[in-house]
């Protein structure tokens, strides 16, 4: 039986911490609730930062390095706040050979973005997604959750430029 140590205080008085607390309580503060809890943090805040990891690690009695390791293992968890708009580029095999490799290169050259980066003005985030399960639509781009597929490289570049200009 692991003794429950002092209950850690919420990192801030942000009410969203209660959502995280509820998620942990639902699984009785079991160590294997870690991924569930990180999902709750990601959903509530949009990202999992160090203060969140510290809180979760203390509350679930888990080592810091374990929490950090799990949070960085899964692409779903973002360490930094996302930009206003998010462009996910599928880099799975089908999308890669259909031209998304060139889109990754394009985003680096045109906007200075590597996968996981956000532009300095906080407008645009670029996420490199592994296979999104829509290989029939390859190459797949996801503009703020809206899936666009089956475009040529030039069409994709044009669409990204138009979208970025429209949204900013």
């Amino acid at each position, binding site marked *: 039986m692991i003794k429950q140590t002092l209950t850690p205080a919420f990192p801030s008085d942000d009410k969203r911490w209660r959502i995280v607390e509820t998620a942990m309580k639902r699984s009785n503060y079991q160590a294997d609730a870690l991924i569930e809890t990180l999902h709750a943090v990601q959903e509530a805040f949009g990202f999992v930062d160090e203060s969140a990891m*510290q809180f979760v690690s203390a509350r679930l009695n888990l*080592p810091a*390095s*374990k929490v950090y*390791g799990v949070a*960085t*293992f899964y692409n779903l968890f973002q360490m930094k706040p996302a930009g206003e708009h998010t462009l996910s580029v599928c880099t799975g095999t089908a999308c890669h050979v259909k031209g998304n490799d060139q889109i990754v290169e394009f985003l680096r050259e045109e906007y200075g973005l590597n996968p996981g980066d956000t532009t300095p003005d906080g407008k645009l985030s670029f996420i490199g997604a592994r296979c999104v399960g829509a290989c029939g639509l390859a190459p797949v781009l996801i503009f703020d959750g809206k899936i666009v597929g089956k475009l040529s490289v030039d069409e994709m570049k044009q669409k990204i430029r138009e979208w970025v200009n429209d949204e900013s």
Partner: protein
Amino acid sequence: MSEIQLTINGQAIKAAEGETILETARANGIDIPTLCHQEGVTPTGACRMCLVELDGTNKLLPSCVTRAADGMVIRTDTEKLKRYRRTILELLFAERNHTCAVCVSNGHCELQSQAQAHKIDHVNFDYRNPQLIVDLSHERFGIDHNRCILCGRCVRVCDEIEGAHTRDMRNRGIATLIITDFDQSWGEASSCTNCGKCVEVCPTGALFIKGLGAGEMVKNHELVPGLVNTREVVHAKN
């Protein structure tokens, strides 16, 4: 505990039920090469050096995590296995920067001795030559990620033997790196007890005692198995 019989490399062998193939083989003087295996902590089957062939299946089995069973016919040193092991070693050499001549563990390194045993004189893959950090922030120890093969022994020893779990791995795939606490520098990691067991179990020169020159880092391989043994004896007494 009941006794079982199996054949390893044509040799008839008796084993206790529950033993792994690796334990049985080593107890009978048959060595199977390993890199991630550490006596005294949970085996993970990560390095794939200990794969063996079992009659009746096409799958190669990691002997460190496969229990010996009655009637098994096992081969540990076929040409195919040797070829696979050489490839694993070559990939490890290509992945990071293993320059033996300037390494603290030169002459006392498990990666090096495995490479010698498998007669590796060149690597068929392009070297990646990554520029990884060398963390010397700890008072007594250092970690050079360029020499790390991600076997996870330090992680398991810190968790299971010391109970601190200061270490873990971040990211995945080619980006994987050993971390301390929230990916802080080792010197800042508050959970570290400075026990140094991670250094003693590291198979390469990735973890080392500071201030030593090339070839001067000799690891104490008996430390962790000894600790585990002592604990079992003490437990049995109480």
